[in-house]
């Protein structure tokens, strides 16, 4: 009896430190945030006020901008990146391709940079007097420098270009790992049957990689909905909030303006709800095609 108890308690001792930390720093704050989102007031003087903060969301034009931008990044950038990563990985999966190691390492390399570091590099490269403008002008593609950072459309495009540069290689590695798991004989059989490269990709690679594509899509969705470092450091959310994201708006509500904990918490719950809904939809779509 004594022995059995000993065996039962010890495993928990391994787990408890992690469980306590994750509960304290993830689940408890998560609940706390919801409670706070039902309160209004400045600083720490908070009073319950029902759904007032959530009602305010409906009329807040900055929030609408932040939501619009975040969704825009999501629906434009994620598909581009996933398709690009898929295309690169199927090219790299070719056995007869030379310099495969070099291509793979080069395209994965952006992953070693910190988000802040690469944001600063992109900000400098795309500055009005920066390298990209100089090159475009030398090639006579443009006559005058483009104000990448301070023009709405270009600033948004810049954020999308930057994120795609940083994360395509990361996703590519997942697909490469998945492709290596597919037996070559499958492709050889298809080649004998006269399948073209595109047919092989569409009817064999895609279905076989589906679980991994689903995983990376959910991963990128969660990441994009929390986007913060890039708009903060490349455009500071400007011009006039044209590139601001929800995370950045929450940060501003906390530290840039008079701290408004209740409203910031309500905004943050929008991200929670979006993640839950989108992950659910993606998993449903992933299942249906089965």
């Amino acid at each position, binding site marked *: 009896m004594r022995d059995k108890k000993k065996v039962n308690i010890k495993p928990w001792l391994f787990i408890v430190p992690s469980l306590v930390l994750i509960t304290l720093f993830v689940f408890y704050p998560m609940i706390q945030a919801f409670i706070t989102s039902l309160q209004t007031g400045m600083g720490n003087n908070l009073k319950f006020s029902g759904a007032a903060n959530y009602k305010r969301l409906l009329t807040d034009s900055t929030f609408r901008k932040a939501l619009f931008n975040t969704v825009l990044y999501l629906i434009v950038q994620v598909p581009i990146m996933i398709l690009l990563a898929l295309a690169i990985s199927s090219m790299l999966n070719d056995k007869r391709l030379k310099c495969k190691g070099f291509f793979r390492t080069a395209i994965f*390399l*952006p992953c070693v940079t910190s988000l802040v570091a690469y944001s600063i590099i992109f900000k*400098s490269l795309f500055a009005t007097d920066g390298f990209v403008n100089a090159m475009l002008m030398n090639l006579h593609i443009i006559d005058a420098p483009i104000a990448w950072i301070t023009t709405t459309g270009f600033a948004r495009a810049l954020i999308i270009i930057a994120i795609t540069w940083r994360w395509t290689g990361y996703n590519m*590695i997942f697909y490469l790992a998945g492709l290596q798991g597919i037996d070559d004989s499958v492709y050889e059989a298809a080649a004998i049957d006269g399948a073209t490269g595109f047919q092989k990709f569409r009817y064999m690679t895609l279905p076989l990689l589906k679980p991994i594509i689903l995983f990376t899509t959910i991963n990128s969705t969660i990441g994009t909905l929390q986007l913060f470092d890039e708009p903060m450091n490349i455009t500071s959310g400007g011009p006039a909030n044209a590139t601001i994201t929800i995370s950045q708006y*929450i940060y501003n509500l906390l530290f840039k303006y008079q701290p408004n904990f209740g409203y910031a918490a309500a905004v943050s719950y929008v991200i929670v709800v979006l993640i839950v809904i989108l992950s659910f939809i993606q998993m449903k779509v992933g299942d249906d095609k089965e």
Partner: protein
Amino acid sequence: MSKKSKVLRTLEYVILSILSIVSIFPFFWMIIAATNKSVDVSKGTLLPGTYFMENLRTLLDSDLNYLGAFKNSLVIAVLTTAIAMVVSSAAGYAFQIYKSKGRDVVFNFILLSMMVPFAALMVPLFRLFTKFRNIPVLKFVALDTPGSVIIIAVATAFLIFFFRQNTKTFPKELVEAARIDGLGEFGIFTRIFMPTMKSTYAAAVVVTFMSSWNNYLWPLIALQSGGKRTLPLIISAMGSSYTPDYGMMMTAVVIATIPTALIFFLMQKQFVAGMTGSVKG
């Protein structure tokens, strides 16, 4: 090879080469900029210069306290990694070795935390860590201490999952044999499991060090006073200045990127295994 597939093959090489150049170019440019005067960088030079030492001196002499931030980043990243390797690996190990219904439920509960966006935690965590200031035992992890950045990163669902997955390759007979030899459960973990799973630990070390070294949002909130700031915070501050000194700025970025780039080139296999959380690596 038919003519058509030869064309396709050439096209493949062209596309991959262009993508590789685009991927590498910002790194190349960052080194060019770090070795040139700011004015020359603005002119669009693409030749390595000889101005690196001057840029470095400007950086170290500036009031940014770059060396201090480097030290802060290093201390935080090393301590986070060391503690995480014990705390998270112990949990991952136990979930796999002592499988039970109750523990599977707890494991799934922990996995759920992966879905929680950090943005939703910003507000309550800021307030929680402010409160720690008034609790004597928790002062060392209160807001504006390195501890506040460390403690939040030592137990993560990702690492616990990673260690549980990899523990599947750890032969259970070793556990049985060690028990017969009279080794306690903790002894088995520290003296048998840890040395056996070196490559798993290597991958976990790489990914934990990387994410701690590069972390931005929570340190930005938690470390408010100048002397406590880490490298990403300093670099971010440099980037938002109105008259950026490109030479100095890129010198700062190059030095901040060296540790992670070194890790990548020396331990590419573990790096990729850690990033993707894959079992085989």
